[in-house]
C-alpha cells in the first residue's frame, strides 16, 4: 500500500471514529431506544450514510479507478449460510450489549469502561471462531477463509494487473471451494479473478 493510500486510511479512520462517537453508536441508550423502535435517530444516521455512500460508489463505478489504489474493486458476493447464522449471532450480541465493534471503541472513548468488557468478549469470540473452524482447515489445508481478515469476495471491473492487491490474502478464493466448512453452494466463476497472486488449487 502506497503512502497516499495509507494517509487516506488514517484520515478516514479519524473522521469515522469521530462521527461514530458523535452519533451515539457508543451510547447504550441511543442504540437500545432504536432497537426498541422508539427512536429513529440511529436509522436516519444509518440510512443516510448508506445512501450517501451508495451515491459516492456510483460515481466511483463510472470512473472505474481510485486515487491511490488502482482499479476500483467493490465487494459482490452471494449470501451464504455463514453470513446468515453469523449475522444472527452478531445481532444477538448487538441487542444484548447495545454496541458493535466500532461502537464499543466509542463507548470506551466516552468513559464507558464496561465497553472494555465487551471488547474482551469480542476478541474472545473472534478467536473462538478461528479455533473452532481450524479442524476443518487441518483436514483440508486449503480452507483458510476463517483465519483471514474479513475480506469480501471481489468483483473486478478491470484486469487486476499492476494493482497493489491484498497484502496478505492471496489464497482467500481457494477457500470458496464447495464442501469447505459445510458449505454446499458453488462459487461463481468471476470471483476467482480477483486473486492477487497465483491461487493454490487443491
Amino acid at each position, binding site marked *: *500500500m502506497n503512502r497516499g493510500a495509507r494517509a487516506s*486510511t*488514517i*484520515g478516514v*479512520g479519524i*473522521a*469515522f*471514529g*469521530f462521527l*461514530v462517537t*458523535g452519533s451515539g*453508536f457508543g451510547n*447504550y*441508550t*441511543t442504540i*437500545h431506544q432504536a*432497537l426498541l423502535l422508539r427512536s429513529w*435517530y440511529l436509522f436516519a444516521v*444509518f440510512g443516510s*450514510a*448508506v445512501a450517501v455512500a451508495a451515491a*459516492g*460508489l456510483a460515481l*466511483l463505478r463510472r470512473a472505474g479507478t*481510485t*486515487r491511490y*489504489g*488502482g*482499479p476500483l474493486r467493490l*465487494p*459482490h458476493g452471494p*449470501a451464504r449460510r455463514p453470513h446468515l*447464522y*453469523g*449475522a*444472527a449471532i*452478531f445481532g444477538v450480541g448487538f*441487542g*444484548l*450489549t447495545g454496541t458493535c*465493534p*466500532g*461502537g*464499543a*471503541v466509542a463507548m470506551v*472513548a466516552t*468513559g464507558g469502561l*464496561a465497553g472494555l468488557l*465487551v471488547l474482551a468478549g*469480542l476478541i474472545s*469470540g*473472534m478467536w*473462538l*471462531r478461528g479455533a473452532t473452524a481450524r479442524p476443518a482447515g487441518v483436514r483440508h489445508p486449503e480452507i483458510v477463509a476463517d483465519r483471514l*481478515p*474479513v475480506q*469480501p469476495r471481489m468483483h473486478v471491473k478491470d484486469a487486476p494487473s499492476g*494493482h497493489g492487491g491484498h*497484502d496478505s*490474502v492471496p489464497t482467500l478464493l481457494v477457500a470458496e471451494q464447495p464442501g469447505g466448512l459445510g458449505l454446499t453452494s458453488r462459487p461463481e466463476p468471476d470471483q476467482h479473478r480477483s486473486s492477487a497472486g497465483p491461487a493454490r488449487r487443491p
Partner: protein
Amino acid sequence: MLKLLPALLPWWLAGPGLGLCVAALYGLANRRLGVSGAWLAAVIAPIEGWAGERWRVEFLAALTGGALAAGTLGSATRLTGYPVLSRTVPAAALLPVLAAGGLALGYGARCAEGCTSGHGLSGCAAGSPDSLAATATFFAAAVGVTFAAHALTGGAL
C-alpha cells in the same frame, strides 16, 4: 467532557459524514471500511500467527484517536456505559451478559465476514447480496433480542 459538541450530532450531519468516509476509503485507497476486520488484523492475527494487513491496524488506531477526540470535545462522561442496564440488572448478572454479548459480536462478525460497518455500511452501499442479507439478519436479530429483554424485565429495559 469539554461540552463543545451536542450530545448527539444531527443525523443529517453524522449520517452523510459516515457515508462519505465509506466512499472516500474506496475512492482513495480502494479498501472496504470495516471495523471487525481491523480488530481481526490488529489483535487476532498476532495471536494466530498470520500477517494482518497493516492498513487495518492503522485504521483501528486512527478510529480510536477520532473517537477519543469526540469523547473529549463532547458532553458525555459515563463511568459504566450502561446507566439504565446497571440499574435494572444486578452487576453479578450484568457483567456475564456483557461478556457473552461481546463474545457473540466477535464470533458472529468473523463468521459473517463483517459487522455493522463492513456489511451494514460498506457492503450495503455497494449492493453486495451477502451484505444486504447479513445486515437484514443482524438488525432483525438485534430488534428481537431487545424486545425479548424488554418483555423479560417487565418493561424496565
